[in-house]
């Protein structure tokens, strides 16, 4: 059984993808406090590959993946 995650913010990205998706994601994560969680709904077919890659590049934690829903925890320090 998966633990329930209560996000601090939610964003429905719709079919936004590639550069548009991660650029807006960067802005939205930056608005959170370190440790807070953003729930993202991303329908783009590239999102299942891009979201883990983006988290790996930026250092934010992808704490749950169930496409099209992703939970990302903001890293400790400011990016």
């Amino acid at each position, binding site marked *: 059984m998966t633990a329930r995650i209560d996000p601090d913010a939610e964003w429905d990205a719709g079919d936004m993808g*590639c*550069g548009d998706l991660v650029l*807006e994601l*960067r802005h939205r994560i930056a608005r959170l406090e370190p440790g807070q969680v953003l729930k993202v709904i991303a329908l783009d077919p590239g999102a299942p590959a*891009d979201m883990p890659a983006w988290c790996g*590049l930026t250092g934010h934690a992808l704490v749950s993946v169930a496409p099209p829903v992703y939970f990302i925890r903001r890293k400790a320090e400011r990016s």
Partner: protein
Amino acid sequence: MANKFCVSLTHSKDNTDKATVAFVVANAAVGSGKETLVFLSVEAVRLAQKGYADGIHEEGFAPLGELMANFAKAGGTMYVCSPCFKKRKLDENSLVAGASIVGGAKLVEFLSDGSPCVSY
């Protein structure tokens, strides 16, 4: 892993598909925390002129002007090839946000520490 990323673009209205995708990829790089440069040369230097990208809107993508504005707003840099710009007699006082006219040495400097570069 290099913390820089370069996108080299040589097209504008002669290939709006390539011009658009170049900025989509550049936005992916800057959105991923990379110090990102778009190097505009050959026909792409026209994009550095205010208003030139207006009306370029590839199906399935955001308008090119919006992609470029988002890129600059996120901290992305555009280097504009000086001889390409001069050859086309463009106006250096009418550059879009984030653009600056440079010679080849600035591109070499940016790439010299091993930055990757993709070309369109």
